[in-house]
């Protein structure tokens, strides 16, 4: 990077016509060129829709033609007083609170095992655990749905023969089990991501540290606690952050497995927004209202920003307190 700057400076100064900012851009033009396609896509498919949908929040609009029924802030008011939205938010947090810690613990444990150089076929196992990640969530959902609808009876028969239950359970149609199934599938489906991240983090820890610790008489747990955990902390924070963001975006599994039902038991905010905007086959009970869906999206976004700020303040306070103790 330093070399590039040094090389670019004499050329820029020799022209004497470009500003400092332009000079820096010109010096790193290849970097900008590489970033450009992604930037264009981001602007077209992320930034523009966000800005455009802000305008829709002030209209009651079914998505057909141009919006014309101006309702001011009424859509935000409706969302804030809608019990179904708050139920969906509660379900979303429930999903995140279960998926993130369970998945992280499992991913770390697996990463520790798969990082062992004495383990034979470890590349095969890594591939095996990463495979679900490259499978579409929608496909996973369809397969799981088919499994439960076709073989749910078999599971029930086994459970009943073991005396664990006395009646058939509709795994995806029972409000007591549907969310648990979605969480289980969610953990399995994206476990591979966190596994790979942890493996990458583990491979940055020098072996010498472990060797020195063992020479000092440290056992496996002591090595894990005093070497692995502290040196994984910075990577771990990023993994937690990515995992939380990913879990808050849960949608496709819910849509395919339960469509938010039964009676909103598995409705998460993203499926709630989708149902508001597009109705779906259950649309007989949902008015298509892109304006209301946009308002729900923005309100949810605001809540997540507040949540992120609180989380950041909490982490900062935690770090300060630890720093004070040290």
């Amino acid at each position, binding site marked *: 990077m330093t070399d590039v700057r040094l090389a670019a400076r004499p050329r820029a100064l020799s022209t004497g016509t470009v500003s400092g900012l332009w000079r820096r851009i010109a010096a790193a033009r290849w970097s900008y060129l590489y970033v450009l396609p992604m930037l264009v896509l981001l602007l077209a498919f992320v930034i523009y829709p966000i800005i455009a949908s802000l305008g829709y929040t002030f209209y009651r609009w*079914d*998505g*057909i*033609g141009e919006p014309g029924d101006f309702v001011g802030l009424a859509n935000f008011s409706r969302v804030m007083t809608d019990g*179904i939205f708050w139920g969906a938010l509660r379900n979303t947090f429930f999903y995140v609170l279960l998926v993130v810690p369970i998945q992280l613990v499992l991913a770390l444990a697996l990463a520790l095992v798969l990082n062992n150089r004495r383990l034979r076929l470890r590349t095969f196992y890594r591939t095996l655990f990463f495979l679900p990640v490259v499978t579409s969530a929608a496909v996973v959902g369809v397969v799981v*749905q088919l499994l*439960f*609808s076709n073989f*749910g*009876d078999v599971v*029930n028969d086994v459970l009943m023969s073991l005396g664990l239950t006395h*009646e*058939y*359970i*509709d*795994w*995806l*149609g*029972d*409000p007591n089990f*549907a969310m648990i199934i979605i969480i289980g599938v969610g953990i399995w489906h994206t476990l591979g991501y966190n596994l790979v991240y942890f493996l990458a983090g583990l491979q940055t820890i020098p072996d010498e540290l472990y060797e020195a610790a063992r020479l000092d008489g440290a056992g496996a747990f002591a090595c894990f606690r005093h070497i692995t955990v502290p040196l994984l902390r910075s990577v771990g924070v990023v993994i937690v952050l990515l995992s939380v963001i990913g879990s808050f975006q849960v949608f496709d599994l819910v849509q395919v497995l*339960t*469509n938010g*039902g*039964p*009676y*909103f*038991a598995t409705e998460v905010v993203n499926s709630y927004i989708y149902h508001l905007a*597009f*109705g*779906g*086959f*259950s*649309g*007989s*009970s*949902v*008015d*298509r209202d892109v304006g209301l869906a946009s308002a729900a999206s923005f309100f949810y976004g605001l809540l997540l920003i507040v949540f992120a700020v609180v989380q950041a303040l909490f982490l900062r306070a935690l770090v300060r307190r630890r720093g004070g103790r040290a």
Partner: protein
Amino acid sequence: MPAIQLSRRQLLRAAAATGGAALLAGCGGSPEDAGPASGTSLAYWDWYVSQAPWVDNEIKLFQQANGKTTVKKTTQVTDKYLDLLALAFRSGTAPDVFLLPTKPKLEVHVGEGWLMPLDRWATAEWRSRFPDNSFVEGVNIFGGKVYSAPFSGLAPALQLYLHNGVFKEAGLTNPDGTVQIPKTWDDITRAAETITSKSGGKVFGLGFGNAQKGALPWLIELFCRGAGSPGGTQNVDYRTGRWTYGTDRNYADFLALLLDWKNRGFIYPNSMSISDEQARAFFSKGRFGMIVGGVWNQAPWEEAGFKDYSLMTLPSPTGTPQGYFYGSPGSYLLGISAKAKNPDQAWAWLDWFYGPAAGKRWVQGGYGLSVYPENNDPAGVTSPTFRQYVAMAGTALVGPVPAIRNPEIAKVEVAAVQPDLPDVAAGIYTGQLKDAPKALKELEDRLNGALSEAVAKARGQGLKVGMDDYVFADWDIAKPYTTKRG
């Protein structure tokens, strides 16, 4: 045989040559694929899956009769049909002829300028081949212009299908060996109990597929109409102009009965999570003895070789239906895009689609009833099960149509409520809503509130409408009703 060895460069050359050849072939096209030299190509959209054989055959016959016109059919997914159509109109790629979305009302699409008026072709003579009152302002006519026409005849929307094999296995047969057709709610309870107990719990009395949230409302619709609730799950009770989920005890009574069936193990346990398609397949395999569905079930079953079933409609507490299915004399199905490049050819296809001969093939194929009464002769139907359905035509009557009495009522846009009936029914069935009568009354209040608000808003916009427009106090629900023009 010696192995053929290619260098990397040779391999790349070969791949480039093959790809280039394929590209050229793709650009050029084959003479067989080319359409008629100076022909017209029409884009046609629908959501018909089980009816596809009929549509394909009609396209073939139409093309044979209209030499140079080709119809290119695209069958879209049902629950995204409106979104896809809206996108197509926005991007200028709308089909020339298309099935009209059932929601929102046709008036909205006319207002958006999607549709071409058909008046220059749909002359008085053309319209005269349809039954009386087939063209109604506010239904398929707007501002005096015709935009579509009815296709199907009045027919029972839902039936209770019985698996003959399961019934026979359970001993539910008459002395002549035919299956006992249940008629009352108690008959169905007894049949479900017998099937479940005789099979040792391996086969269930009843099943449904509520994954798309539609099957529970079908059950309520079928049973409560039979018990004398004329609104079913679709409309207000036009005798009072109000929704009656909470005040008409049929709804709470039926849901209590349904819960009783569930608690006694008569209902297939996965019914809340499987789709209707899965439920139909499981029924045909004999996993349960009864299922509620429409005539659209029949063609796929028969194609799959399953014909051993019977059907009935409108079971009631007493055995005699107290209410019926009610239809409008005017309805709509197909329309022509306002942007159609070849409107005359588009009309020709629409006219063929609506023709009496096509309607006759529709009935003969077992897809439904035709708008032309002469086509609905059970004697002309070969399938015995479809013949049973055709013979049920009398359970569908013409009911009140507020838009005939006051066309302005068609402009009232009533907002849907949430939770609506599919949600509340699911909540009651799963036990999430413990107090069913209270939940039904709250639903009724929400719906009546939404209706009152919509009418008030319409009045505020200058429309001459009122809640009285929904009231037909002289309606005898056991007889066809003729709505007088306002």
